[in-house]
């Protein structure tokens, strides 16, 4: 708030020399990003397609829509003002004034990070779905609708709208699994609907409770989620929100859907779910618990640390024990979520900043590991680890991508997950040392599970009885390479590349630079006082 005062008194000039600066003077950028996929879905749904003649055109519409969203995001990302702690690109229209519902959108640094992640995962999911042959129209319609729901959840600043978008994501994804999934797709789809529906109910319960406790005037975030609520209400609502988030991220023990969903869904859906949709759980904790209810944040931080440790430990052990490569990928995709939550549990500025960065890196790493396992299982024509073996020479692209995914999960330097994990751990050791140790131990188990997976699948002795294998197709390489490339880019240039000899950004102002907007404000209730000298 101090910074806000300074900024309002001494307005800083808009960033110059940055591509896209000054294009969006009217606030409609977020609506475009949210609704463009829906418009494209409507187009795909209505254009005539006799005997599937225009299937490729539909794929192209979906692809170029996502490219358009990414272009909009690129402009918004460059125009984003990282020194402002407030929401940016805000849009506010009255929708249901009788109950105080507004169409209110806006993003700050963490929101921008999530939008970039969602954009990348959206494009990756389209590329991963290029091989879809059956009911192409329906498939891409549903995929674009799911993207809208994810993006809408990220930018919603009205809790009523948030609940709608949050709940809406489950339906197209469940239909996608039901229509294009593996042999056990029915169970997976129902499980997704059940868990996410339960989470939506919990979120709605929390939102309506807040609405009731704050006087029933408005559903707006700014009115509903404010630190002035009594600690008892904060605690109750935060617990409900954590349950809602735990069904989505997922956190142990509400993770029951992830194995079947990531094990049965087509690769395009896997990337969208593991990469972007699941990160919404952590984003919800950030928005509704950490940023808005500091009293509850302080009280519940040990619970969050315990959930993080249990999630990472369970995921590692389960991946170690499973005999299904897609299940292993699904379990391992839970690990980044645990690390993100550990940063929130740290309730320190650095831990929260690390968690925000880990939303991005963890989403990419989870999408990559789950996606590469799904693609590998398709290309190897089996998902049994007892059958797979010695594939590295025969599928070098997938071998490299699986290795990069493993390194990203473990936070090996050069990849951006290193920065996120270092920040999270550095932040966590102040307030949650036991939780941090436990998560570190869980990471060690995950490392062993990854080593076993790599050895069995890639480097073990080839199995002569295994079915024939082929390397990833161009589209598959591109979609996995996109995720790996993003991890590498942010790892190499977290502050963005600069014009040599200057501090002027070349074309990317740097994800870490941009994400810092608003983090100081979010973490201000958790700043430790200057300690006194004592022994």
């Amino acid at each position, binding site marked *: 708030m101090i910074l806000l005062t300074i900024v309002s008194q001494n307005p800083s000039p808009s960033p110059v020399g940055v591509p896209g600066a000054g294009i969006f003077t009217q606030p409609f950028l977020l609506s475009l990003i949210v609704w463009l996929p829906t418009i494209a879905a409507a187009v795909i749904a209505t254009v005539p397609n006799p005997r599937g003649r225009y299937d490729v055109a539909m794929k192209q519409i979906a692809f170029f829509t996502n490219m358009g969203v990414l272009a909009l995001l690129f402009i918004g990302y460059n125009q984003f003002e990282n020194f402002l702690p407030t929401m940016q690109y805000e849009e506010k229209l009255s929708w249901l004034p009788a109950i105080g519902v507004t169409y209110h959108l806006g993003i700050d640094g963490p929101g921008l990070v999530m939008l970039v992640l969602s954009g990348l995962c959206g494009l990756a999911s389209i590329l991963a779905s290029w091989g879809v042959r059956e009911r192409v129209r329906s498939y891409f319609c549903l995929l674009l609708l799911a993207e809208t729901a994810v993006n809408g959840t990220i930018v919603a600043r009205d809790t009523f709208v948030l609940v709608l978008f949050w709940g809406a994501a489950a339906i197209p994804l469940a239909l996608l699994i039901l229509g294009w999934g593996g042999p056990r797709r029915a169970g997976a789809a129902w499980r997704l609907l059940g868990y996410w529906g339960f989470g939506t109910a919990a979120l709605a319960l929390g939102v309506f409770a807040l609405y009731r406790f704050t006087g029933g005037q408005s559903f707006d975030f700014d009115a509903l989620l404010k630190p002035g609520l009594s600690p008892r209400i904060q605690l109750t609502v935060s617990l409900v929100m954590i349950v809602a988030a735990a069904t989505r991220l997922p956190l142990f023990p509400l993770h029951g859907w992830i194995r*079947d969903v990531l094990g049965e869904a087509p690769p395009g859906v896997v990337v969208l779910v593991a990469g972007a949709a699941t990160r919404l759980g952590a984003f919800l904790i950030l928005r509704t618990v950490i940023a808005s209810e500091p009293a509850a944040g302080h009280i519940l931080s040990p619970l969050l640390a315990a959930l993080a440790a249990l999630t990472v430990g369970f995921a590692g052990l389960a991946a170690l024990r499973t005999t299904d490569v897609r299940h292993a990928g699904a379990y391992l995709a839970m690990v980044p979520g645990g690390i993100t939550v550990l940063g929130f549990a740290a309730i320190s500025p*650095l831990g929260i900043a690390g968690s925000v960065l880990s939303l991005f890196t963890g989403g990419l790493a989870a999408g990559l590991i789950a996606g590469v396992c799904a693609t590998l299982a398709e290309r190897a024509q089996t998902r049994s680890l007892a059958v797979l073996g010695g594939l590295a020479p025969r599928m070098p692209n997938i071998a490299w991508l699986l290795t990069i995914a493993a390194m990203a999960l473990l936070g090996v330097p*050069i990849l951006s997950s290193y920065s996120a994990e270092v920040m999270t751990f550095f932040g966590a050791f102040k307030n949650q040392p036991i939780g941090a140790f436990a998560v570190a131990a869980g990471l060690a188990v995950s490392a062993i599970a990854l080593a076993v997976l790599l050895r069995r699948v890639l480097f073990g002795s080839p199995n002569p009885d295994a079915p024939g294998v082929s390397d990833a197709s161009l589209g598959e390489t591109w979609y996995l390479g996109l995720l790996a490339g993003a991890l590498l880019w942010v790892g190499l240039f977290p502050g963005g590349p600069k014009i040599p000899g200057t501090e002027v950004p070349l074309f990317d102002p740097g994800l870490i630079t941009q994400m810092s907007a608003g983090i100081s404000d979010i973490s201000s209730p958790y700043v430790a006082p*200057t300690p006194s000298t004592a022994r």
Partner: protein
Amino acid sequence: MSEIVLAASGAASGTRSAGFTFDPSTTLPWAVPLLLIAPFAAFVLALSSIRTRRSASAMAMFGTVVTLLLTLLVAWGLSRRSTPYVATYQYINMSVAFSGPTNFQAFTIQLILHVDHLTVVALLAIEICMIAAIGWHSVMGRSEPGAARFHAVITALLFACSGMLMSWDLAELFGFWAIGGAMTYLLLAHRWGLDEAASRARVALALPFLTDLSFLCGIAWLYARYGTQKLDALLPILHTNPGWTVRSLVVGSILLGVGIAGRLALWPFISWITQTSVTTPPAASAIAQSAWSIIGIVVLFRLMPIVVASNVQTVRGFISASLVAAIAAPLLSLLGNEPRRAIALAGSSAVAIAAAVVMNGFQAQSSTFAIAGVAAVLAIALARAGAVLAVASIAAAMRTDDLAEMGDASRRMRTSSGALLASVAVMVLSVVGALGFGINSRSPNGFVLGEAVLLCAIAGLRVFMAASFGPLRRRRAFEPDRVRETPGALGWPYWIAAAGATFVLASLFSGWLNLLDGQSHKAASPAAFLTWVGVAVLGFAAAGFGYATVRDGAIAASAAGGRLLGRVMAIVFGAIDRFVIGPATDVARRLGDGIPAGDGAVGRVTTTSGRLALAAARLPAMPVVIVLAVVLALVFALVAPGVAR
């Protein structure tokens, strides 16, 4: 990059006065970053260029030699400087808070390239080891699979080693540490395709990963208390930062100590070296042992001020742990007849002795003792690599990994046998040099260290004696007369041992120690040297006498001890597997299956209730309403005051 290019062009286009007035220190701004860039470029080229064995080997050798030349150039540039050269590049800089303690308001990770004489000498030692190992492997590792991968990983490890030695920011140090750890695992697990190699390599991942996590936790713990991870900023505020406590320093020191001990492969963290000693390519094992010895001791030397700042008990605890490691490793080495494992354990003992010398030096506030320990490890590392390569040559020629089946190498493989002897001698005499500088042989620590030197000498020499003397017996499909040196490979262990001997000789002079840490030290007394040399000679004599008189009996006793140890370890690991790993993974499996099964039951109940609701909807309305009214009336009647209560 642009700064490096500018520095290079500046150095090249300086004003020319009469005559050749080249100032080597002007090369530092571009030569120092190139120490990182050169091995990384070699790594990329080795990965992406022609993937034949010869080209990969040549590329790795080329990259390592270029790095060696750059190191020599940097050493020349530093020769006229009394202060280290420091270059700083920003990696992460973000503001995270606007209030609270100032050191926690921003988070910064910088690539600080801090080059001093110790850095350069340590890097030179590592490069010598790597060049020898690559050269040896190009001949002896012809049949190894994945040549491109192997050599690419070696260059990446060199990149990480350069980074670790130059790092002055602990987060940066951990970054390079993690890369080095990952590359070491890939080297040790190189023979993925073989089941035994792959299963043994799991230890090489799990154990160092745990200790690396401890190292990360230590850094994070210190950051959480001090708000900085830059060494030059951290060390001065260890006792002045508001809120510091002895407890926090003790915990941080222990975590860092465990992390370093894991990579130094001190007992009990040595199994990642010993378990893979046979199943990994010998060159990989040699590189892992030598490079991490040097990295570990240099990092320990730099972080010891943190340990010393905690309290006296912690330093004593560290020294005691080193002494135990120094005694336990050679004792374990005597049990079993696998020569590479025995050499690894003897080397670990030597490193533990040197580490104890370093810690003792810091405890006694004497920098001479400390740097003498570091100087000793520089020689030990070379000797370990030489010994591993020499004994691997012998084992390959005699086609056995059992000392009982070896023999007569002094006649049939004279160079390898001589290199093995020289390496063992260098290993033991280097610790003698360090001890001579400052450990009182009459002190309790001196007594234990004397025991350790004695055992280390016995453990090292017994391998030489068993392999070099005695009959080489005929076995099935093995003809002793065909045993001979492999042309092209025989020189590498010899030269690396010679380099180690040079380091040992240098470490005996105080001028070498002055050069390494930039301080002035007194020369050690010849009497002290002679005392410790006497202990080592006693150990050599004991081993020599024992193997000269009852060779077969000694080998049989070792074999029996090895079998016993194997049984004990099998019981211990079996118990761990049965009571820890098994139940834990079983719980995870049951949960993984049980939770979906449980929610499936919830789903079925939900479906059934939905069906019932649908069935109820089809019933005639009036009777249902009447039944419901009756049920509700009964409930209200029972709840209402005065009826049931």
